């Protein structure tokens, strides 16, 4: 059975159907607020550096998870990096088959520790490879809202 297959014949069991009708609104936190404001307003990527552990966190954090120092050194990083790993998703969230697969990639930004999960665009599935240099394509400034979706996708770096 596919993991996305829905439970069948629910009507045959004596069951009470219902939902937990809550939803969530998340704030981005101290580090997230600054990161996404910078992306929205200036189209720039920011990270925080831990001088002791020689790590550059992108997305940024206010503390180093390894030595627990408060991180106060903010640095700009370029919106480009390499594909660390990727997958081709042939089903959507409701289990429907997609004609063109979604290309999802973990992109490691240049010089950074960690990475950004996003879609790849302007590339055919067969051309994607681990290690491929990619760059972020942002929405036009007036459409940006301060969200991960302000990045449309990453595409192969144009030289």
């Amino acid at each position, binding site marked *: 059975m596919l993991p996305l297959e829905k439970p069948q014949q629910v009507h045959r069991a*004596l069951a009470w159907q219902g*939902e937990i009708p*809550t939803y969530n609104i*998340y704030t*981005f936190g101290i580090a997230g607020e600054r990161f996404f*404001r910078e992306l929205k307003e200036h189209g720039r990527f920011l990270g925080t550096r831990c001088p002791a552990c020689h790590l550059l966190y992108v997305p940024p954090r206010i503390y180093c998870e390894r030595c627990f120092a408060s991180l106060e050194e903010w640095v700009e990083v370029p919106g480009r990096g390499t594909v660390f790993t990727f997958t081709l998703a042939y089903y959507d969230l409701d289990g429907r088959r997609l004609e063109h697969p979604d290309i999802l990639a973990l992109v490691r930004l240049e010089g950074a520790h960690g990475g950004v999960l996003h879609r790849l665009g302007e590339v055919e599935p067969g051309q994607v490879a681990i290690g491929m240099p990619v760059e972020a394509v942002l929405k036009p400034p007036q459409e940006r809202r301060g969200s991960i979706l302000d990045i449309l996708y990453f595409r192969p770096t144009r030289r």
Partner: protein
Amino acid sequence: MPLRWTVNEFRGTPLRESDIPEGRVLSVRWDPNARYAWDAGIAIGRFLQGLKEGRILGVHCPSCRRTVVPPRIVCENCFRPLTQWVPLQDTGTVQTVSVCYVNWDASRRREPEFPAVIALDGASPGCGILHILGEVTPQTVRVGLRVRALWKPPQERTGAITDICYFRPL
């Protein structure tokens, strides 16, 4: 020597209620859209079937001699299987009751509702179920009130706790 603990160290950035809707801080919304079909299971399945037939069923434990409702397949006192099904009365005594003016999402109700724990006649003392009282007012509800179930007409029953519309004073 440890540092002195001082009040200046408490951190946190409180927001106002309006900061999110008015966009002063960034945020993202997520709807889990989590829908469920909760199986009634063995004991409650049989209990619901009883309700459909207009009967409230309990189970008797021959070991600790309690008759409990809601029914269950194991006695939590003795950890023995419960297999003796006993029909209970549809009358009982209010153990406790509230006059509730709020909904699940903390919004206000215009008319209150009256959730109560009702100890059913035929079950061991203090063995009750949760239900709603009807045909009462904030002035007339009280602990110790004797009540009887008001059933839906047989053809409208679905095998659910709501096959009992509410309990009303005898």
